[in-house]
């Protein structure tokens, strides 16, 4: 870290308004060369607007941006790219059917008169991958066949080919496994050492702490704190983010566990899972840990009847009922929260009321018709209960922030009056305030005697709210025991297929 060196990028009092919304109310921060700088803030704090200003999508209303000491006013994203600002978005932007080489050089193909110079194309792609220490990737393979983590490396290599001065990464780890995250961090470290300034945006505070040199906290569109990462406690950052004390976001509230509601016995799907045995009891929060691709999502989908069950048994309330379609599962009181909020979980161009009540119109429908006023009233009830920030229940759900959208998706299960909740990554990509609210909602459900199957890649939350945790590895539950008997270290060991010390038998203890 070179503090005395001239600043690579400076933002001074940047402001931006959209109509009545004051999205940025004065953001100032600076990034030096060879520095990893984390931007931290709740959803809606202004991070994405800030990034759009930097990458030339929006022009700031007030304030200045300096790049290498010179005023920087990008008129469009292309201009910003040429000036040396590279952006890696949360959703990968690759052409899945093109090869790694073609993707890395896409839009920048070396050549003449429209004919590409394949040799040069290859060598410059390879060069970029070498910088990332990933020259061993199969250069001619279509990107579609790579893992998400590898695709991300390709995406970074593509950014590198234009020799960026500043690389902005927006939530790069949200769909990566622990191992891949560590690998990515190594790559980011290499970039820093080669002189690139990295602006890193993430919700995972522990990650930010691990990787970054300096940080800036955004709240309500303004920068409220900045400093060296080494000299700050996480609690302080959280306090800056939310503007209030948030000592324990995991509510540990007493609830009693009763009879089994959902039993999976050696459940197997077509490809995944291979053999899952879980006993989910009334009032229990059962967490499923494991790497991405271990078959956790597929387990929930098979339970819910979205994927076919190849073998094994599912019993609900002690009665065997292995094969069913989602409608039947819903009628049995099972609700599934999809991990893919945007692609599967919600009807993005419909309003809140429809999204909330879709699975159970029968609550108010008369002879196949829906009295709109009652539908809106019902929706409003859930909106109030879940503290969703919205104008009215007839607002389109696409206008809401991620956290509020997720609350609506969960609200649908509540409206459905589900008894068994299958929650797939319910807190992914949402702000910390919404997270805390979802945790307390889940524990409230447990107190009411509902059963919750909770899939998550974020170990602290699993350890924080679950009664029991099972770890999946390659389509099987490898170990399952009370949460109090797990540590993060043990969970990771089992998830990556290593033996842990003193492996306990896969039985339930009483919590």
């Amino acid at each position, binding site marked *: 870290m070179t503090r005395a060196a001239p600043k690579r990028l400076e933002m001074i009092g940047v402001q931006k308004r959209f*109509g*009545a919304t004051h999205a940025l109310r004065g953001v100032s921060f600076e990034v030096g060369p060879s520095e990893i700088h984390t931007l931290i803030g709740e959803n809606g704090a202004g991070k994405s607007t800030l990034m759009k200003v930097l990458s030339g999508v929006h022009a700031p209303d007030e304030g200045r941006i300096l790049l290498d000491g010179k005023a920087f006013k990008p008129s469009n994203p292309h201009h910003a790219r040429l000036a040396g600002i590279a952006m890696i978005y949360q959703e990968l932007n690759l052409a899945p059917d093109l090869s790694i080489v073609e993707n890395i050089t896409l839009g920048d193909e070396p050549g003449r008169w429209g004919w590409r110079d394949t040799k040069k194309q290859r060598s410059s792609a390879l060069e970029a991958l070498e910088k990332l220490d990933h020259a061993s990737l199969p250069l001619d393979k279509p990107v579609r066949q790579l893992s998400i983590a590898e695709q991300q490396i390709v995406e970074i290599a593509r950014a590198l080919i234009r020799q960026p001065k500043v690389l902005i990464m927006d939530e790069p780890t949200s769909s990566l496994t622990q191992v891949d995250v560590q690998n990515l961090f190594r790559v980011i470290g290499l970039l820093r050492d080669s002189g690139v300034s990295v602006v890193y945006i993430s919700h995972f505070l522990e990650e930010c702490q691990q990787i970054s040199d300096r940080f800036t906290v955004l709240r309500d569109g303004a920068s409220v704190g900045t400093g060296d990462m080494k000299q700050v406690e996480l609690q302080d950052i959280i306090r800056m983010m939310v503007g209030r004390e948030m000592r324990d976001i995991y509510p540990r509230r007493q609830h009693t566990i009763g009879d089994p509601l959902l039993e999976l016995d050696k459940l197997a799907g077509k490809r995944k899972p291979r053999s899952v045995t879980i006993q989910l009891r009334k009032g229990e929060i059962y967490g499923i840990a494991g790497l991405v691709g271990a078959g956790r999502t597929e387990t929930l989908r098979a339970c*819910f009847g*979205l994927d076919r069950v190849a073998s094994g048994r599912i019993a609900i309330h002690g009665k065997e009922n292995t094969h069913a*379609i*989602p*409608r039947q*599962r*819903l*009628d049995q009181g099972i609700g*599934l929260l*999809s991990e893919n909020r945007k*692609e*599967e*979980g*919600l*009807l*993005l*161009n*419909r309003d809140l009321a*429809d999204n909330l009540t*879709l*699975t159970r*119109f029968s609550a108010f*429908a008369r002879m*196949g*018709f*829906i*009295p*709109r*006023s009652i539908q*809106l009233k019902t929706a409003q009830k859930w909106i109030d209960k879940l503290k969703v920030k919205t*104008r*009215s229940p*007839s607002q*389109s759900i*696409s*206008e809401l922030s991620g956290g509020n959208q997720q609350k609506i998706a969960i609200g*649908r299960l509540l409206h459905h009056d589900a008894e068994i909740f299958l929650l797939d990554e319910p807190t992914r990509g949402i702000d910390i305030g919404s997270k805390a609210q979802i945790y307390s909602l889940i524990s409230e459900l447990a107190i009411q005697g509902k059963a919750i199957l909770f899939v998550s890649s974020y170990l602290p939350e699993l350890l924080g709210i679950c009664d029991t945790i099972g770890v999946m590895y390659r389509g099987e539950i490898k170990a399952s025991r009370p949460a109090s008997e797990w540590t993060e270290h043990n969970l990771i060991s089992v998830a990556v297929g290593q033996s842990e010390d003193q492996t306990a038998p896969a039985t339930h203890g009483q919590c």
Partner: protein
Amino acid sequence: MASAKDSSVQFNWKQFLNAFGPLFGLMLVIALFSLSPELRPVFFTGGNAKLILTQTVIVATGALGMTLIIVSGGIDLSAGSVVALSSVVAGNLLIQDFHPATAILLTILAGGCIGAINGSIIAGFRMVPFIVTLGMMGIARGAAKWMANNQTVNPEENPLNRIMEPVNPLALWPLPLGVWITMILALLMIVVMKYSVFGRYVFAIGSNEDTARLCGIRVRFNKIMIYTLAGFFFGLAGLMQYSRLTQGDPTVAIGLELEIIAAVVIGGASLSGGSGSISGTILGALIMGVLKSGSSQMNWPTYMQEIIIGIVIILAVGLDKWRHGRQT
């Protein structure tokens, strides 16, 4: 009803455009024709209004069904062929001395059958609607020609011939029965689309099929229902087509499916599904009807009409895109 609590200017403007965009389009088209002094006295007469309505009815009836399909994220290219087939079926039944009521019922059922076949193939084999209905377009057209022995079918004078008859061509009233039927069905469909569970499911499926499945909607069953119901409308449109010509004609309504789709799209529906409205569709059909009638009365050649309607389609969708672009 929905009460927008917050009344920021932008919000209302958007809602306003969404609700009244096609209506403005219609008013604009009428206003343009009223600019011509020689057209004005002929154009604004009850008789002409009746003529336009009568000419629009077949497209509008088909478009009621097509709206369902397009909102659900599908498309039906066989609509024109089904109209021709149904007109032949109607003619054949009447020649064979079926009671008119029976003939009506069976003709509409014939359309429904084709729709059910389309829907079953699309839902059952998860095939792309474009391809399936493209195939059905040929099949239904061929079947129509086969059933009609490659010529028109001309039954004797019967009550069905009068569904579209303008009793008094010079006055607006009485409107032909067919116009009334379409108006009533349109009102019914507005209610179904807006307030019925089935209607919500159609929007849900078109908006995101995966979500619909996740929410326990029987997607396949509902798709079959959608195409079948649309088939009934195409069958009815065929019946009206028969009545208009008072003969079954296997070569009629070529390209009608595109006019029907255009009406739906001008009315604000998106071909990617999830949005659209019956009222918009009806206005879309009227816009095209007025354009056609106006330009033929201006003695513009048909190619002018075709060019104008083409421009209107692109404009309508472009405006829609622009409007939605502003929202986000």
